[in-house]
């Protein structure tokens, strides 16, 4: 088989993507595609893992056994989602160890939303309803991303996420139908989580550094702003149903565009949090480092046990 030039390889690669085919781990790929995917998939994996922290904060204080079992299962799922995604990232030639290292040393990013604290039980409702709701919109798009292992992980994740969102909405609904204090608690959670949830879709398209290449390579099939609008359009009627209101005085239905208009997002806050100055950045990483170090004996014991069995068999 004749050697193909770099240009021919790139053209073949792009043609495959344009034909809606999938790129698999051993296929030739543009190096920047590989690097961008490692960055995106590992950020996504880290987000699942760090995302367990704000929620696990309430497992022991869940109001009843039904809620506790649901929340526990959800947090367990997040661990599973992290693992699917780490596996997908590893197929691109980076080791699990390097990935964890990048998280624990603060080199890698994870979703900004998890740097906000969960102050009340209603926050668990708001996270499931809003944060998982926003994540689903993004992840549904990624089910058809051009990289096979990533797309397949997303299909699995989306199947499991819908329970997350519904358990969150049910918590909100119960609070909103409860006492005045309980409803106020739901409104307070919405007030604090609404804007950070909108920021989850990332900067506006005109300011998004990685969007255009990833769009060309069919990883990002819809723009940040379009996804954000879709989320708002879906979520506002749900808040109306709950009888609580978004903390945005500019939010109103636009008959002409058939979409909701909404107020200005505070991008300064977004950049503050992403650069390490959010309310919980430090706490989250310390908790991960502690979990990693406290878990060392388990890893050691598993390795020693496997070793002993091997020696016995020999």
């Amino acid at each position, binding site marked *: *088989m004749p050697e193909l030039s770099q240009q021919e390889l790139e053209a073949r690669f792009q043609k495959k993507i344009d034909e809606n085919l999938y790129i698999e781990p*051993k296929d030739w790929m543009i190096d920047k595609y590989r690097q961008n995917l490692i960055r995106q998939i590992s950020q996504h994996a880290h987000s699942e893992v760090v995302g367990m922290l704000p929620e696990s904060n309430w497992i022991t204080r869940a109001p009843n056994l039904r809620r506790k079992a649901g929340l526990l299962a959800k947090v367990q799922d997040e661990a599973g989602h992290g693992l699917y995604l780490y596996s997908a990232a*590893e197929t691109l030639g980076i080791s699990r160890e390097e990935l964890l290292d990048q998280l624990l040393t*603060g080199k890698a990013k994870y979703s900004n939303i998890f740097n906000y604290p969960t102050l009340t039980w209603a926050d668990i409702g708001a996270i499931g309803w809003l944060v998982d709701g926003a994540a689903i919109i993004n992840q549904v798009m990624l089910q058809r991303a051009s990289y096979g292992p990533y797309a397949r*992980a997303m299909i699995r994740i989306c199947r499991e996420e819908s329970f997350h969102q519904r358990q969150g909405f049910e918590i909100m609904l119960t609070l909103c139908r409860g006492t005045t204090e309980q409803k106020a608690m739901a409104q307070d959670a919405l007030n604090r989580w609404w804007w950070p949830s909108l920021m989850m879709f990332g900067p506006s398209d005109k300011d998004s550094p990685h969007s255009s290449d990833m769009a060309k390579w069919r990883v990002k099939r819809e723009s940040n702003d379009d996804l954000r609008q879709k989320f708002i359009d879906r979520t506002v009627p749900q808040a109306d149903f709950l009888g609580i209101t978004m903390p945005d005085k500019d939010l109103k239905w636009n008959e002409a565009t058939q979409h909701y208009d909404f107020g200005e997002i505070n991008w300064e806050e977004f950049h503050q949090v992403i650069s390490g100055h959010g309310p919980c950045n430090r706490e989250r990483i310390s908790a991960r480092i502690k979990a990693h170090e406290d878990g060392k004996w388990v890893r050691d014991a598993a*390795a020693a046990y496997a070793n002993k069995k091997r020696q016995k068999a020999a």
Partner: protein
Amino acid sequence: MPQQLTPIKKDRKQLDMEQDNQWPLWEVFIQSKSGQPYKHAGSVHAPDGEMALENARDVYTRRNEGTSIWVVPAQYIIASTPEEVGSFFDPANDKVYRHPTFYTVPEGVKYI
């Protein structure tokens, strides 16, 4: 106003990473129902086959997705190479006579 914090920086060695933290990789195949073929689900790291099975159960079958699991050391999987996909599968390309539609059966003949 969020509190100002110093950025998190921790040296790799400070994290007390184990020398060999990277357990072998196992590919996971799941049979969803009795009689169905095993399908690739993903992969897990584990120090041995038994623990790989348990990890695979916890990661890939939390909702009764399987009745049986195979784990295979990833290093033992031999895969066809994408660059040779054309020539590798070429022998089947021109053999229409391997398909039933190649053969004519007169109208009126049944059960064939």
